[in-house]
């Protein structure tokens, strides 16, 4: 090998620590970009693969009981590719020996080996199909409880008898809403088991897939309406709820979109950060090589030869970083994907990264450093020999000419080491600008993530104001309001009660098509059991006729629901027109429409109520839980079939859980990006100190003790950290505002923006600690060098 190439490798090897630092700096950039983009790509692809392979329904009817004959007619209907019937029932149960009542949504199929729509797949050694007395739980149940095979679920039948179900394994159903989002688990049982639970062995739910794979949402709605009339209404069967999701769109699609957008935005930021980091590091390396460039030119090296020498050096750094960063990024993306898959309840069959992600990673590792190095290499190599040889061996920081220098120079009364640190900081202005850019961006991202979290917390707090009650109880069938309220009136802890009627309703559009069913909730317009946040228009008022208020979820799905618009709703087969008088913030609980309970009741022939809300005497979460158990026990004793019971704190926890997914993603990204910033600072401080080795020698020769030297460099690091923190704090405001807007747009919920002063303060502490620590190690090493060697340092 020629001496010049040997020099490259020897330089890399002899400055092992510096090499490691540079490689690590580039590798962390590759890692950040790779993890973010890789996760996004694998997530999107695998989610899509899993969702498509589930053969998701275009329409699902929740109806009165029907038989096999209706299923055959459905299958034979034109334009229907597949039909799948099942029975769904909601029961309350106690897990192992627990005294807590929980809700379980049970599903039963006739033939578990031939589920054609919304496919359910057994996981591992699950008993499939589940035997009599067994239940196979949807795998997401494990997110809310440590369920295991062999666990016993004691289900309470409507007649008060208890039936034990043994957990026989787990199954995956991407179309089942994950337990942590809805507050109940889903389980699969046989018809025999359902019979043991007192359920009729017939179907009550039909899911259809249309033959047209590219069907529009509007056409799907129209077709769903026509089929409802043909299949159900012509037979006198009532369809309580029709679900027509946007074709090809999963119900968690909004959250997924938000996560994906966030990942993309952070990926771009990570790319920018790593580019800054690389430019910074390579500039420093080149500054250190200036004298050697002079020597080589003095013995005959041409600029082109030296260009190649340093391009090769940078390429070696890049290649080493790619070798480290690529597998690390793949592992990171895999971990992140698994994390997301568990939360969003989908299966990952392949972690294969798209080629373009690998290309981007390699570009970050090789091309960005080379581009970053181009300027410094050119400047260093084209420097005249005499200037290169007379350079201090390092970057030539000029101090004293600029206004800032003179201001710093004029400051009196500072301890000498502090004054030196301040002036040193501003000596290498180009380096300072690069370091500050990197750290400012990292600071802005970290503080922004904090602000996004604050905004989410504030939004949850706002949304919580909806629930001005402590317990809500849902019933399987409409009940007499007076009887229900009388039943619980004397339960200890009950202060006030109110009853609501909830039914499924669809919007009949002007072209005759329908949307998927919304929940239509009838309540007292003067109810004090809810605290709506009115986004537009007003809330219900006593005396309103035909007035409805819609939530933001409903407006997102059906934009025609504007304040002032007159809308036709099909409510349980009865059509009536209503006027939208207001829009309120939703609680991510799905689209809902609110109206006067009296008017809704009279429209449907006064069927009764389906929900009881209770205000307790003690708002404490434990007291709420006790109240819930007491009320539910009393109702069950009274023969009422409860399908769901929730406390206010449980509902708000669920809300936090849903939005918390986004926060969790953001926090992971923030940690990653701040790691880039920290390594950048460490690298810069290390190189700054190395460059000052000769200065340290001079200081020690003139009597400076180790402590003084540490003080100088640690102060310099802290000054840099503090400036970056201040600039990052300012930049974080527009950045966090943008991130919050992206999120709000994606999840379809206006978020209440909150700037995180806690984040600003916390990051200041972290930044000062990190920048101080990043300077100590190199200052220590530099101080250990003998005065003679330090002065001769190159």
């Amino acid at each position: 090998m020629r001496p010049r190439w040997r020099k490259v490798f020897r330089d890399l090897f002899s400055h092992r620590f510096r090499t490691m630092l540079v490689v690590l700096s580039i590798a962390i950039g590759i890692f950040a970009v790779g993890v973010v983009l890789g996760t996004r790509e694998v997530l999107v692809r695998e989610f899509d693969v899993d969702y498509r392979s589930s053969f998701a329904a275009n329409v699902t009817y929740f109806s009165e009981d029907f038989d096999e004959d209706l299923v055959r007619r459905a299958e034979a209907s034109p334009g229907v590719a597949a039909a799948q019937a099942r029975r769904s029932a909601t029961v309350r149960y106690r897990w192992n020996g627990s005294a807590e009542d929980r809700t379980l949504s049970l599903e039963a199929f006739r033939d578990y080996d031939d589920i054609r729509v919304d496919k359910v797949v057994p996981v591992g050694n699950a008993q499939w199909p589940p035997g009599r007395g067994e239940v196979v739980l949807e795998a997401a149940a494990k997110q809310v409880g440590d369920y295991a095979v062999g666990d016993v679920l004691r289900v309470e039948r409507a007649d008060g008898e208890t039936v034990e179900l043994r957990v026989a394994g787990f199954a995956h159903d991407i179309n089942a809403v994950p337990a942590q989002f809805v507050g109940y688990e889903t389980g699969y049982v046989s018809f025999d088991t359902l019979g043991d639970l007192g359920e009729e062995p017939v179907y009550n739910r039909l899911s259809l897939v249309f033959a047209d794979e590219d069907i529009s949402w509007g056409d799907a709605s129209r077709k769903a309406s026509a089929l409802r009339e043909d299949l159900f209404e012509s037979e006198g069967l009532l369809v309580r709820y029709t679900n027509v999701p946007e074709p090809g769109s999963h119900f968690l699609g909004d959250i997924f979109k938000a996560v994906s957008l966030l990942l993309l935005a952070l990926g771009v930021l990570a790319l920018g950060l790593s580019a800054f980091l690389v430019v910074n590091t390579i500039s420093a390396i080149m500054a250190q090589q200036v004298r050697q460039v002079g020597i080589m030119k003095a013995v005959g090296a041409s600029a082109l030869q030296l260009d190649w020498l340093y391009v090769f050096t940078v390429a070696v750094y890049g290649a080493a970083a790619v070798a480290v960063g690529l597998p690390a990024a793949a592992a990171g993306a895999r971990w992140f994907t698994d994390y997301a898959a568990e939360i969003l309840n989908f299966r990952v069959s392949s972690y294969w990264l798209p080629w373009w992600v690998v290309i981007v990673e390699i570009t970050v590792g090789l091309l960005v450093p080379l581009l970053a190095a181009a300027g410094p290499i050119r400047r260093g190599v084209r420097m005249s020999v005499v200037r290169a040889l007379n350079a201090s061996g390092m970057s030539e920081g000029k101090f004293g000419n600029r206004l800032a220098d003179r201001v710093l120079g004029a400051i009196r009364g500072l301890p000498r080491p502090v004054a030196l640190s301040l002036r040193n900081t501003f000596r290498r202005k180009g380096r300072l600008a690069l370091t500050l850019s990197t750290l400012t961006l990292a600071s802005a991202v970290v503080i922004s993530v904090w602000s996004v979290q604050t905004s989410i917390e504030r939004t949850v707090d706002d949304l919580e104001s909806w629930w001005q009650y402590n317990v809500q109880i849902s019933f399987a069938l409409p009940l007499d309001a007076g009887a229900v309220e009388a039943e619980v009136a004397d339960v200890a802890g009950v202060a006030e009660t109110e009853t609501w009627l909830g039914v499924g309703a669809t919007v009949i559009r002007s072209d005759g098509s329908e949307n998927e069913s919304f929940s239509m909730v009838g309540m007292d317009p003067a109810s004090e059991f809810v605290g709506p946040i009115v986004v537009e228009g007003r809330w219900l008022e006593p005396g309103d006729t035909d007035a409805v208020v819609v939530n933001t979820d409903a407006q997102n799905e059906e934009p025609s629901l504007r304040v002032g618009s007159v809308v036709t709703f099909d409510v349980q087969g009865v059509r009536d027109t209503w006027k939208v008088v207001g829009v309120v913030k939703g609680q991510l609980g799905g689209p809902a429409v609110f109206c006067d309970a009296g008017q809704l009741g009279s429209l449907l022939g006064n069927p009764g109520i389906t929900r009881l809300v209770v205000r307790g005497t003690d708002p404490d979460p434990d007291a709420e839980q006790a109240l819930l158990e007491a009320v539910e026990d009393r109702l069950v004793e009274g023969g009422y079939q409860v399908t769901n019971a929730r406390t206010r704190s449980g509902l708000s926890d669920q809300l936090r859980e849903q939005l918390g997914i986004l926060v969790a993603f953001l926090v992971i990204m923030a940690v990653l990006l701040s790691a880039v910033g920290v390594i950048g600072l460490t690298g810069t401080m290390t190189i700054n100190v190395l460059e000052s080795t000769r200065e340290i020698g001079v200081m020690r020769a003139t009597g400076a003790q180790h402590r003084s030297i540490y003080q100088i460099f640690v102060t310099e690091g802290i000054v840099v950290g503090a400036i970056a923190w201040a600039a990052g704090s300012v930049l974080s405001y527009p950045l966090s505002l943008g991130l919050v807007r992206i999120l709000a747009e994606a999840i379809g919920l206006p978020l209440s923006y909150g700037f995180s002063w806690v984040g600003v303060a916390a990051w200041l502490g972290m930044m000062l600690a990190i920048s101080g620590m990043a300077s100590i190690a190199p200052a220590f090493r530099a101080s250990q060098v003998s005065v003679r060697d330090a002065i001769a340092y190159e």
Partner: protein
Amino acid sequence: MGITIWDVNIGCGGDAVAAVPSDMPVVRIRDLVKVYDTGEVPFTALKGVDLDVYSGEFIGIIGKSGSGKTTLINMITGIDHPTSGEVVIGDTPVHALGENALAKWRGLNVGVVFQFFQLLPTLTILENVLLPMDFCSTYPMRERVPRAMALLEAVELADQANKLPAALSGGQQQRAAIARALANDPPILAADEPTGNLDSKTAEAVFGLFERLVEQHKTIIMVTHDNDLASRVRRALHVADGEIIEERVHRERHTG
């Protein structure tokens, strides 16, 4: 110390200089001016210097610190550019060459020796000597190592060939730097205070080495502030305030 083995061709190599007739100067400097922009007041380091150097001469440039002697030698090596005036070496107008052309020209025609040796710290002594041959592509690959070893042998460093510079004493490093300067067999050797960082015994050895090279027709231009050494060179030029104020020619060449 005796340097007896000069079986390496260190004779008058260099493309342009070799072709100069013996009665013509190999270095011709005319009205050379160098002004440094040091801020508010420009500093004139050379004030219209004229100088001719002939092949095989051993020239000493002496003067106090800041007199302009290093600036003058930097003009000859092309390490620095003049503000005005001409530096012609052989038939090459060095003052008119760009940095890139200068590097190549210098590698072939002028061996540079620095006060602080300036060996590349991560290359062994042998590799440092090989480096100019590598950059200038002189000598076939298979001849380079034997030649470098012969040069190190000549400066009595063959046994140190595979050591890094940091492992050598100052005198050894300077001898290695001289071997490196001779790697491409340049006709001219320019040394800036080559003994300035050495003890007197080692300095004497290095000076002796230069005398042997002059005997073998190398042209040596050496900057020094050591009047004793200056008295032993063929021509001594005294520089003060950017001008050659005195020139002494010693008839008897010292042979060590």
